[in-house]
């Protein structure tokens, strides 16, 4: 069964980047163009979630917080170019023991694939 990945990003080119990179390795990629849409989509089950940090409306920090209310397990990657305005929010997420990992942009498709494969293998070995 192909693995299901959710990409939440307001930028079309980023969403497409993930789709192109991951569909090539037989993943099924769903996208959401806002935090709100992303939260709705997580009603379905995903294997990995990528979420942008800086988005209009719900920010990445808020989106991840909402997703984690229901889903404690799915690995979530927050994708960002370092931005000071969210440093506090990210620290708070960590403090509240909300599980996530940070990835810095730009991400090449090789790296995206490596992260996905590495994460799935890691999960499988548990």
């Amino acid at each position, binding site marked *: 069964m192909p693995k299901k990945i959710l990409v939440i990003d307001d930028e079309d*080119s*980023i969403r497409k980047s993930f789709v192109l990179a991951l569909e090539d390795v037989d993943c099924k990629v769903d996208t959401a163009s806002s935090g709100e849409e992303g939260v709705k989509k997580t009603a379905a089950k995903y294997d990995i979630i990528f979420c942008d940090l800086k988005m209009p409306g719900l920010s990445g920090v808020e989106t991840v917080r909402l997703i984690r209310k229901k889903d404690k397990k799915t690995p979530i990657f927050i994708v960002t170019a370092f931005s000071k305005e969210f440093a506090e929010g990210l620290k708070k997420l960590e403090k509240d023991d909300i599980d996530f990992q940070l990835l810095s942009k*730009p991400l090449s498709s090789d790296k995206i694939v490596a992260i996905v494969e590495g994460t799935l293998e890691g999960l499988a070995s548990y």
Partner: protein
Amino acid sequence: MMMQDASFYGIKTAELAELSISDQNSIPENRKKIDRVFSLFGYDVFLSTYIATLFSDIFREMLLGQTPKLKISIHGKKEPYFLAFSFSLPRGSGLMRRIKCSFDEVKVTAGPKANHILAFSRLHVNGMSGQLLKELRKALEFKSKEELYRELDSTYTKLNSSKKMAQMEKMSAVGTLSAGIAHELNNPLMGIINFVQYCLKHTPPEDKRHGVLSDAKREALRCAELVQNMLSFSRLEESGVEEITIEEHDIGPVFDEALKLLLYRIEKENVQVVREKSAAVSVAMNRNQLKQVLLSVTSNALDAMRLSKKKILTLKTIVSGKVVSIFIGDTGTGISKDVLSRIFDPFFTTKPVGQGTGLGLTICQTIVGKHAGEIKVNSESGKGTVFEILLPLQGTPHA
């Protein structure tokens, strides 16, 4: 020397403090006054003879109709004392060069007709009693003492720090700008890289377009590198020193690590490394950041020697007082004067397109600054360059 009252000098306080010259006729008289001041100084204080003779020239050249005022005061609370001279000089009088040579520090404020000059000269106090110094100060007083000292103190500090301030302001502005641009560029750039990579993957290597796509990918990656540099620079600008981990480390091993990363180049390019042994020196630093500085400066040194016949990289660490100096010297092309003044400017580079982002030294300077240190450069065109990285010592050096 017996101290008497201020009249001992034969000059009234006000006269000494503020010699006003309203026309040329008064010059000989003023000259006399000044001579007396200097002859008095001569007993216990040795002023550069340059300055003594310079003053006669200055007065000779003063414009008619102007009322330039000469103010003399002693500056400093302990040695070295400075004599501060404040006066105006008509523009274009040709004396500026001599003034600049004669004084230790000269600050010029340009006016439409005359330049106002504040010059400092080191006072060589030779066995001068504290009492005499006090009297001298008193004699030279023309405003409230505190006011004058404050003024001079701030001017003197400004003299030293204005350059640094300007640089810091520039850094901060560029930091903000870089961060903005880099953030905006990051997303589309990520798109470009991935789209190209996708096309590349689905184009057979024998297809002519494969090469073109490879070129496109390489160029996009170059942009990504620049963006990363801009981001790490702005991050440095944003983060206070308290946000980075500072620990005591011995400089030696950090230097070793930086050199290890360059070993391949050093061997390939036949560079001779002269490393002077030094005692272990512990400095409070962020290890990674300092390593980055050493790496950057050393790698620049290698770049500078690429075409040199003699390739010697000299590394040494010298402790003097509470400061440790790390010297990184090369026998490369050297840096010309006009370039030297700009090497720390963001985005300034003399390297060929694609080989330098012009942020390396800017980042180094910011890092060293965050460590309360300083970077100095000494360079001679055609002979080579020596970078000196000064860092404050926390503990005392231990062997």
